């Protein structure tokens, strides 16, 4: 069957075709070098500063949704059928300032101005969804944008005032929504796309069964969903990753099913897309979810990717393991399901056979008497990689701890359960002493490393203290706050 060998998308107002793009050409380089759209800046090339923030609009179930992404780690070839919106598109054709831009000027939100286009794009996305945000919503939307000049105060004030300068209903992207939807629909591909030279090959499977076929043909392929990790393999380490199989366009991997028993999340679901269901099924993850990376990365990164890359410091594996999640792996000719903790074998090694891909993750809902918590410790509260992360699930029966599942990130070569600490709790009554014993037992479970994020000593100490916090936080006798409020 003939494969499509070009990528088609809408760039600002223009239908655009790129023939045979390389897999590893980033959207940022394409914008700045090929298109000379220089308003989008490179600050870090690792998705941490937000200077390259652009909007990507994509059809999902026929509906058009715009999200902020980091152009520096987004690969151009993955954007077939999308609408890419850059800072150059915000001012109207007559050059009139956009309400976001007006608010930023009037509140003196730019100093050196280099981060400014990225901030404007993040605030634009926020305003489209939430025209009158709270200060906390603004901060959450800006977790992925660094400014070194202003101290943020004028930017936050601008964000809170945008609504005074215009309403989203008059916004160009909203007014053109039906037209853009139709144009994007016409750009969708019904066949597999293969582009680029052999040493930098991009493959976009037609659907999930085609994905299985592609992986059967190319078991060495690099599977890329959000590219929030693999993007850095290219921009930072210049690692060859060909052939690259992009999957973020596959709607079948985007399913979210919530029933009385479990929440099942397709491997292609992003952190942002899963947020509503996560909040509903697991309210204790609400704050934790907001602390995963920054907004742009949450819009790109997937839970499937976070699991599949096997990092010992991924945010979701510890909490998923503590909740008893299972992962389903699929390949041509079959699927298998295993407990998530069994998937992580060793550093850099997962239970993935040739041709396997992560298809979905199933998280059982809480049993009666189950108490859950998730904590993350990092140098900076937001948009930081954890030094220690933990998911804790305890089932209480008549004041006795009947079950305990505690899984840590940052403490070992893989996300790992704390077997000794769990054993120290099971059968004990709910008490400070029991959790103190569990905290002490962590020394048998883990020998953490020292690195730039934290020392081994701190990791072990704080891990134990998080178990103590769990007890205090869920103890009816507490009368004072036991941790810092978020707002």
């Amino acid at each position: 069957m003939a494969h499509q060998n070009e990528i088609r998308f809408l760039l600002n107002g223009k239908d655009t075709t790129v023939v045979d793009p390389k897999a590893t050409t980033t959207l940022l380089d394409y914008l700045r070098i090929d298109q000379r759209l220089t308003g989008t800046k490179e600050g870090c090339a690792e998705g941490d500063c937000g200077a390259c923030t652009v909007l990507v609009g994509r059809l999902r179930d026929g509906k058009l949704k715009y999200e902020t992404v980091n152009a520096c780690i987004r690969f151009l070839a993955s954007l077939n059928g999308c609408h890419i919106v850059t800072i150059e598109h915000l001012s109207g054709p007559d050059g009139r300032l956009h309400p976001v831009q007006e608010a930023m000027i009037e509140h003196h939100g730019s100093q050196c101005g280099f981060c400014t286009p990225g901030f404007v794009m993040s605030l634009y996305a926020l305003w489209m969804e939430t025209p009158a945000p709270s200060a906390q919503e603004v901060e959450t939307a800006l977790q992925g944008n660094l400014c070194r000049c202003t101290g943020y105060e004028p930017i936050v004030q601008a964000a809170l005032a945008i609504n005074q300068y215009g309403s989203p209903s008059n916004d160009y992207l909203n007014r053109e929504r039906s037209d853009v939807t139709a144009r994007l629909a016409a750009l969708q591909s019904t066949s597999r796309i293969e582009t680029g030279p052999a040493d930098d090959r991009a493959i976009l499977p037609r659907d999930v069964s085609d994905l299985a076929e592609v992986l059967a043909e190319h078991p060495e392929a690099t599977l890329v969903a959000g590219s929030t990790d693999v993007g850095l393999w290219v921009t930072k380490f210049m690692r060859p990753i060909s052939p690259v199989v992009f999957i973020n366009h596959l709607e079948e991997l985007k399913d979210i099913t919530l029933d009385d028993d479990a929440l099942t999340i397709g491997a292609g679901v992003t952190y942002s897309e899963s947020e509503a269901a996560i909040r509903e099924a697991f309210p204790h993850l609400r704050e934790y979810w907001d602390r995963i990376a920054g907004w742009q990365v949450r819009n790109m990164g997937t839970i499937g990717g976070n699991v599949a890359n096997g990092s010992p410091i991924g945010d979701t594996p510890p909490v998923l393991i503590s909740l008893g999640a299972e992962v389903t792996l699929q390949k041509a000719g079959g699927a298998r399901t295993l407990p998530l903790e069994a998937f992580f074998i060793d550093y850099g090694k997962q239970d993935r056979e040739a041709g396997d891909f992560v298809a979905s993750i199933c998280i059982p809902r809480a049993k009666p008497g189950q108490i859950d918590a998730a904590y993350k410790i990092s140098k900076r509260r937001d948009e930081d990689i954890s030094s220690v992360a933990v998911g804790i699930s305890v089932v209480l029966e008549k004041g006795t701890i009947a079950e305990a599942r505690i899984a840590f990130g940052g403490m070992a070569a893989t996300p790992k359960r704390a077997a000794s600490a769990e054993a120290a709790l099971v059968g004990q009554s709910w008490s400070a002493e029991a959790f103190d014993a569990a905290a002490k037992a962590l020394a048998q479970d883990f020998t953490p490393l020292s690195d730039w994020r934290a020392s081994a000593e701190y990791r072990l100490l704080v891990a134990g203290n998080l178990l103590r916090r769990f007890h205090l936080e869920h103890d009816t006798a507490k009368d004072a706050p036991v941790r810092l409020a978020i707002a």
Partner: protein
Amino acid sequence: MKDQTTIRGAVHQNQKHDSAVKQVQGRADYTDDIAEPVGTLHAYLGVSSVAHGRIKGMDLSRVRAAPGVVDVLTAEDIPGVNDVSPTGKHDEPVFPTDKVEFHGQPIFAVIAETRDLARRAAELAEVEYEVLPHAIDAVSAHEAGMPLVTDPLKLERGDVDAAFEGVANRVSARMVVGGQDHMYLEGHIAFAIPGEDEDVIVHCSTQHPSEAQHMVAHVLGVPSNAVVVNVRRMGGGFGGKESQMNLFCAVAAIGAKKLNRPVKIRPDRDQDMTATGKRHDFVIDYDLGFDNDGRIEVVEGQFAARCGYSSDLSGPVTDRALFHADNAYFYPHVRLTSRPQKTNTVSNTAFRGFGGPQGVVAAERMIEEIAYALGKDPLEVRKANFYGDANDGRNLTPYHQEVEDNVIGRVVEELESSADYQARRKAILEENAKGGIIRRGIALTPVKFGISFTATWYNQAGCLLHVYNDGSIMLNHGGTEMGQGLNTKVAQVVADALQVDFDRIKITKTTTEKVPNTSATAASSGSDLNGMAALDAVEQIKARLVAFAVAEWDVSPEEVVFAPNEIRVGQETFAFDEFIKRAYMARVHLSAAGFYKTPKIHWDRAAGKGRPFYYYAYGAACSEVAIDTLTGEYRVERTDILHDVGRSLNPILDKGQVEGAFIQGMGWLTTEELWWDDAGRLRTHAPSTYKIPLASDRPRIFNTNLADWSENREMTIKRSKAVGEPPFMLGISVFEALSMAVASVADYRVCPRMDAPATPERVLMTIERLKAEV
């Protein structure tokens, strides 16, 4: 226009940044946005993989053979002098020839058709080293007998040894204060375009175009008049682009001249952070004597700094640490010494405050020592030690300059009241006494900061002002725009002096072609120096215009009035444009070069005496924090700031400087941690690992005010004061508040002596140490 009673954009008004509209639209050009001429090549640096080693062999054949590679530059390709040391010490080669002295040191550059190809090729070098022992911090380097990078400074006054005899209380301890990466959002970049003869034009992102010009001339072996350096704007500088751009400019220019093609060099963020200098971290040993009322009697301090492998600006940086080791406090007897220690790390450089913050943080630690030793509120100790005036004799600094403009008492008093410090501190003490997991702390800290370059000759500036015959105005000065709003302020000065609307004035790039021999835009001096130079230029043109009017209409000079956008000559009134046209037709010279040099200052470094500073800027901040004693996590609940900028040229821009500096200072002392591994590799070299504050880290309540009653007692531009650096040290209030919250776990009986930065880890580990001590 005719009816306007005041001009738009006068001084002391809230005029928005002159590039704001372009910036929010992404239309403000930075160096990497300049359209590349056909044939542009891209350079990338190859760097060392050991912290210290003799280069035994360098095989670059694979680099040369890599796809797209056009050439490889090594020391042999440097036609002039292989050195970019900003202070003439000749200790900073562009490319070393015999040994490397830090991990990540540039050793060659590859030039290729694209940046991506150059980057990939640079990885292919095969360099053989004889590995030598390395020391990466100031203490181990000292112990290993490594030399100082430059002469140390000693400041001494009174009789220190005698004063320690019989002093009522004496404390000595050590404080370690971390460094800081600039993390300007736009990294280093230089773009050289070759010209005829020996000429080359370099577009780059530097705070010091004249130095870049001189360095490029130096490495090319050509006179300075062959080199033009242009800077339209920077995406942040903070001192990181004062001297560190020299190497990039040199490499781009060498490549451009050798190949006769434009060459651009832009390191990625990781190389930017590993190969360019940062704020110096310090190890400070202090010995302190004080009476039972908490008054300081004697201070001895040694300030050792990690300077890196070369001197760069470490001499003046470590000097300034001593100049500010008194902060706002009078030390009757004092001896301060610096130890600018050579280490096998990147050469540290200027960073907002220029060593001053490290001195101030030591002074505040000593205040804490007294407070905890005597069981007092640190604010009470602060007040007891503030500088006085000539009447009480408590106004002499360790460098023998009299403090003549002291307003710290008023600033602190007003802030103490507006922030409701006393009541809040009382409430916090009561809350902490309940022994909860969450503890709080509050601190009100002052800052006094000396304004002027301590290198006296740097305190000069030039300006070139053209009035075109259509009445439009072109303004150029020697300062550079890095976001601080310097161009806006200088244009306000010109608008005000000519009484024309701000929009009539265009400021373009800073270029060595228009104003020569400029100083770095640094030391907070930008508007002080360039504003005055601009005013001088305006006054020259105005004088010619007045003379013209006097002759043309036979009026007295007093009858020629520059009114808003018009000129009144006796009974007649002319629109500005019309008047200029007439002046042009009458052959009046409508262009002027302005100049300014700061008066009164002098400094004898050998004697440690003089008046290095024209004046002082003052401020104070009060911060409240909450900490989690189980994890060390914290957040800033509230900050109130009162800062002195004299009569502000532009209050809204100054407020932006104060807020931004505070957050940057807070970041320095909290989450920004530089971490080297045992091999001497910096492992926190990008925003993924190096954490500057985010919007969500700002204080939950944040009140910033300028002291609107203040006026510079010196004849500065419109009686304003410098604002760039002084408020950086307001961030110390957060650090001190964290310290108080930590101290609560030991009932304030022990001075926490927390080192900086106070990461959550350091907060928790200090808590653990204090719990064990009591």
